[in-house]
């Protein structure tokens, strides 16, 4: 069968889960075993690996930690010329964000709606199309698969203008559906491609067995195939969600007062009269933390394999 088509082996996962996994691996490493030359050299490698991981974590976590700290500082502390690690924390920055004419609440709502709905749609449609792509025997399947993923290769800047004209014609500018659609144009090819790799890993004899057992095609899909690709669904959802949640380029072009998202709100704090670092880091925290928590919550889905024990081969 020609399943070599589509993407690489489906194990991408966000950095958050990655670090967690590494952390566990180290904790689980055996210790206190008898000495031997081999042992000591393997211990040296282990130290080296630990060191590299520590460096990588510093590289990743220090800026995040600094952002988090800064978001609790008052106007004086945050711009102090000697960086303040100990200070009196304040919630003023967060309070101010939700106060006044430029309340952050609608931005959050827009972000949740646009990113959430587009990621859900991308997973739903991507699963259906990816399943079809993984199972079809049609000629030119590889070209189709490549064409689908190639639509994702164009830089956002290249498609923003034509998309803008189309959206204006359809009245989709400054609307949540417009943003959802814009994110879909980018996420759907990726979702199809990723999901088809997951489906290709499920032996077709499983659904054939279901068909013979009395299932319709649709039943075979959701009773047998979907449960086996749960980790694929979660991975795809998170990756699509992160893209849409962090997006600035589409939002800055297509959104208006009725649909502006969190990254837009952050950019509006950079004004000609100055930058409010306290509020900016508070928004940054609001943007980053939910994605980190989501990654942590689902990491067991992101790192597991899928079809163990389905078939005879060990």
């Amino acid at each position, binding site marked *: 069968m020609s399943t070599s088509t589509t993407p690489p082996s489906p194990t991408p996962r966000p950095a958050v889960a990655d670090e967690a996994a590494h952390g566990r691996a180290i904790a689980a490493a055996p210790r206190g075993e008898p000495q031997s030359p081999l042992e000591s050299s393997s211990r040296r490698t282990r130290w080296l690996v630990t060191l590299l991981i520590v460096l990588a974590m510093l590289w990743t976590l220090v800026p995040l930690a600094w952002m988090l700290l800064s978001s609790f500082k008052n106007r004086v502390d945050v711009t102090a010329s000697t960086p303040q690690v100990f200070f009196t924390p304040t919630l003023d920055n967060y309070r101010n964000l939700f106060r006044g004419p430029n309340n952050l609440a609608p931005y959050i709502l827009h972000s949740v709606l646009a990113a959430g709905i587009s990621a859900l749609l991308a997973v739903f449609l991507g699963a259906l199309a990816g399943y079809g792509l993984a199972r079809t025997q049609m000629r030119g399947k590889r070209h189709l698969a490549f064409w689908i993923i190639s639509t994702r290769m164009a830089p956002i800047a290249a498609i923003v203008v034509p998309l803008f004209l189309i959206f204006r014609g359809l009245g989709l500018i400054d609307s949540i559906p417009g943003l959802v659609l814009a994110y879909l144009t980018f996420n759907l090819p990726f979702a199809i491609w990723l999901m088809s790799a997951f489906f290709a890993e499920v032996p077709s004899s499983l659904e054939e067995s279901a068909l013979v057992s*009395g*299932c319709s095609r649709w039943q075979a899909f959701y009773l047998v195939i979907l449960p086996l690709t749960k980790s694929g669904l979660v991975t795809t959802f998170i990756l699509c969600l992160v893209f849409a949640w962090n997006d600035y380029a589409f939002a800055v072009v297509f959104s208006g007062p009725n649909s502006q998202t969190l990254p837009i709100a952050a950019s509006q704090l950079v004004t000609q009269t100055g930058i409010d670092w306290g509020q900016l880091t508070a928004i940054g925290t609001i943007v980053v933390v939910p994605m980190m928590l989501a990654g942590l919550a689902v990491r067991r889905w992101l790192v597991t394999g899928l079809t163990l024990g389905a078939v005879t081969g060990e």
Partner: protein
Amino acid sequence: MAGVLYEEATRVYPGSDRPAVDALDLDVHDGEFLVLVGPSGCGKSTSLRMLAGLERVDGGRIAIGDRDVTHLPPRDRDIAMVFQNYALYPHMSVADNMGFALRVMKAPREEIARRVREAARLLDLEEFLDRKPKALSGGQRQRVAMGRAIVREPKVFLMDEPLSNLDAKLRVQTRTQIAALQRRLGVTTVYVTHDQVEAMTMGDRVAVLKDGVLQQVDTPLHLYQHPANVFVADFIGSPSMNLAEYPVVADEAVLGELRVPLSRETLKALQDEGGDRVILGFRPEAVEVVGEGEPAGFPVTVTVVEELGSDAFLYGQYADTADPARLAQTVIARVDPADPPAKGERVRLRIQPGKERLFSAVTGRRLPT
């Protein structure tokens, strides 16, 4: 209960100009255990999948019982299939795997539980019902796959090389169990294998396929004793039949000192096809060791002796010729295991009269005797 009927059933895969299954005519009786056997790529799996509805039928028809199922989807055929890789659902427990078909049919919960328990008892799986497939051994997984088919209580069992992933010993055990189980349940079964020993030991009848074309359907014994053509003669039996082409001189097939008189019917058939050569075959056990003076015999130099305890087989080279083609042929003969000849020894063998099989050198078909 129902039989299975293939009528001129044909499958041509897209992009291929040769049918994978070519006008298959096969009548499987109600309750029969029919084995489809043949070398790799001969279309066994395709034939089975056509019956399951997993492969399109491009010509002809297939019926289960009185019902034409040629274009029915798999779910409406009332069959159960055991796959080569078992295809167990990894996210379900053994019990759920076995009860899956009934759950899809919306059978009452108690009935599902009862039938799963019964099948589990039959297959010695009771203690594993709550386990996931990945926590089972290969043999246990195989039994779960069987159990899933049994619980369904279908009209026909379809099995595609269900034993090929087991080790040799377990395979022999399991094949007896499956055959016994089938006889007990009396469900019509179509069983695919490439192993002719499996075919001979399990089937009520055996259908031999080659290149998508049915060669012969018969009981194992009849297939062994009266192969319809050279292919079947060669494929069935282990060690295989001694087969070679012989010139016909007057009314005998002659090569070196080996002479086999041909009957009038055989000679007439040869004359009709205009051939002066014949393919002669004899089974290893149709040969006996004779004294040096025996005129009907032929000399053989022993190259290997295979001693199996209950049997011994001699592998040798014809010693009455300098023809390199003839020298390249191996003669296989069963000899007395209590007194086997030694390696390098020269012995005289004779084909027991009436045990030789004759085939056309033109068509490969059996000639009348």
